[in-house]
């Protein structure tokens, strides 16, 4: 303290005896000296306590992604490929076609029904394929199928294969088949890293954005900057609380995958945690940027949904983004959630080293750096 004379101390020095005479109201100043990081630790502690006391946080951050993983994991669990339903239009050659189809090793479920009923059932999705024999046994057959329905295309290929083989086709190229299905290639294995990425995005954006705007709306940010508190300590404490939460989120989701779905984590845990931290950092930056000006919770909610919506759709959380047109691919790959999901999948499922992820890491670092820099110059404390 540069001022040697503080009024109260001076007053105490000059009038300490009379203070006691007048009722002893003068309270001694307890000379507690706060260190450089006292405020940071208190801010972090307060933030963690607040989160712990908010049941919604527990639900949305921890329970919701678990339920989602659980539900989707069960709905899309691995099942044998479905057997095509084939209708054979009743007619002179129908019996022969059915016999030929059943003789083949291809699994087909075929039945003979009147032509009108067969076409009707095809239209309603009850049959995947209708075979209309023209003429007697060994005569020409006609396939009615829908090229836009994958199961119809599959049924046509299988039925044709069965009929051609039964009719005596010789395969010029010998081919052996072996069934192959193991953890790592299933839908749940694809899904869990995607959910992890999405959860880091959701909780990062809300954890920063919502809290900051709520504090601003309460004038609590203004109250804090009216003290000597360092603004960087405040933001650092908020970011640290996100990191602590990130480790918990990550452990829970991967734990569920391992225990319940027998998922195999191939990559190193250290690399996974580092990726999680980088992802949490990028989305904390985006959350900070989104919340840098908004005065009301309603405004920031809309803004955050606007930012997150494209990533929910395009970033390959529930299905591969390769399905989108090629023109969109460079844009999709530039999104932070795409980079995070790709990196998490490569590390968790394939054990790729971080060095092989340079592109994705660069995308995440760029998002984090740019959003933090913009946010710090735009951020309004009052």
């Amino acid at each position, binding site marked *: 303290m540069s001022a040697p004379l503080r009024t109260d101390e001076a*007053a105490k020095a000059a009038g300490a005896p009379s203070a006691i005479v007048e009722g002893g*109201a*003068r309270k001694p100043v307890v000379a507690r000296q706060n260190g450089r990081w006292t405020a940071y630790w*208190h*801010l972090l502690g*307060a933030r963690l*306590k607040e989160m712990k006391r908010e049941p919604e946080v527990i639900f949305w951050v921890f329970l919701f992604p678990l339920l989602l993983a659980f539900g989707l994991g069960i709905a899309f669990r691995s099942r044998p490929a479905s057997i095509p339903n084939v209708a054979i239009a009743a007619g002179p050659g129908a019996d022969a076609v059915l016999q030929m189809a059943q003789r083949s090793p291809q699994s087909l479920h075929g039945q003979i029904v009147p032509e009108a009923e067969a076409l009707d059932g095809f239209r309603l999705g009850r049959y995947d394929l209708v075979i209309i024999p023209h003429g007697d046994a060994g005569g020409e057959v006609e396939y009615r199928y829908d090229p836009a329905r994958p199961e119809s295309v599959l049924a046509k290929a299988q039925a044709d294969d069965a009929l051609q083989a039964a009719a005596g086709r010789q395969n010029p190229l010998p081919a052996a088949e072996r069934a192959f299905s193991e953890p790592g290639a299933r839908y749940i294995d694809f899904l869990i890293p995607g959910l992890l990425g999405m959860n880091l995005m959701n909780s990062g954006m809300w954890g920063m954005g919502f809290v900051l705007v709520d504090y601003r709306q309460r004038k609590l940010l203004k*109250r804090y900057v*009216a003290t000597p508190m360092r603004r960087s300590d405040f933001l650092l404490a908020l970011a640290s609380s996100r990191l602590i939460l990130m480790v918990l989120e990550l452990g829970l989701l991967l734990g569920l995958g391992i225990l319940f779905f027998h998922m195999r984590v191939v990559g190193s845990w250290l690399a996974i945690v580092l990726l999680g931290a980088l992802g949490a950092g990028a989305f904390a930056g985006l959350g900070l940027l989104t919340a840098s000006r908004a005065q009301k919770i309603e405004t920031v909610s809309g803004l955050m949904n606007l930012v997150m919506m494209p990533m929910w759709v395009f970033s390959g959380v529930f299905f591969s983004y390769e399905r989108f047109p090629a023109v969109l691919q460079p844009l999709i790959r530039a999104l932070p959630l795409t980079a995070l999901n790709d990196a998490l999948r490569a590390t968790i499922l394939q054990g790729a080293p971080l060095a092989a992820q340079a592109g994705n890491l660069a995308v995440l670092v760029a998002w984090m750096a740019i959003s933090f820099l913009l946010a710090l110059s735009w951020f309004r404390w009052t």
Partner: protein
Amino acid sequence: MSPLKQRPPKNESLQKRLTHKAAQFVRIEGMGLAIECRGLRKTYDGKVEALRGLDLEIREGECFGLLGPNGAGKTTAIEILEGLLAATSGEVRILGRTWQSHPRELREWLGISLQETRLAEKLTVRETIELFASFYRQPRSAHEVLAELELTEKSDAWVGKLSGGQRQRLAVATALVANPRILFLDEPTTGLDPQSRRQLWDIIREFQRAGGTVLLTTHYMDEAERLCDRLAIIDHGQIIAGGSPAELIERLGGQHMVEFAIDGASSHEAKKTTNGKHMQEVWRSLPGVESVHADNGLVCLTVRQPHVTIPALLEAVSQQGARLLHLTTRQASLEDVFVRLTGRHLREES
């Protein structure tokens, strides 16, 4: 150095005198003024003029009040002094320093309670105080501040569960835990019940007695009258009057108010019978009357000596053949000053 005239310390309070001595002692160092601002202007969005040239000088150890109706510019003024808002133009010095040159030092020295801060609801009272204490290099002990503000019983309760009065005390506690030299309070008692208000007044007095400087805004006249050594009345972003409560009341011309009502019919009749003289002029011409105004069906006279005015008033009433329905006398208050000042102001505008 200070253009303000030195007021002798009040004799009734030994503490005050000591505080004053301390202030003089510090003044040798050239820091007699706690808060000083000149030509403060604030224009919002280039059109709304919230402050139109404010000059203030607040001494160390003083309790100073900014008094004015809602929207007068009190909050804008206090937030500029607190360094939370940039002025459009003008100069601010707090304890001899400016916000530009010594922001961190000043933050250590000020304790601030904003208007309507909603502190984190899911933290307990003690956690909140300890959090604020952690921001300062040398805070007071949270335990001691809680005891002083009678919040010890509530120290484990969540902030969200507190009553209005308790929340307001907690807001002041977050300022006091800083161990500040100057306490800024923006409408500290708005919306509180009388008991909670009195409790807060005691806390503020206590702080001042220990040598602290207080700047508070209020739109309660009684609060300003009881707490403040000096005050400035603000209206439309300007100071329209300033001084100690007693000085302001003295400026009314008289320290007593005589309020009365007379029988309506007779007073109407009387208007015609007194040679075309307006009733107001009759009252104005009574001995010792400084001013007359009508308020809520009553005639209010500002007088120097009620014992001279009242017999004359009774005589005048009976001369008019009227009947007295109501008569009270009381000490003039800041409320009367305010009605006089803003009333005149409003009339000038329209």
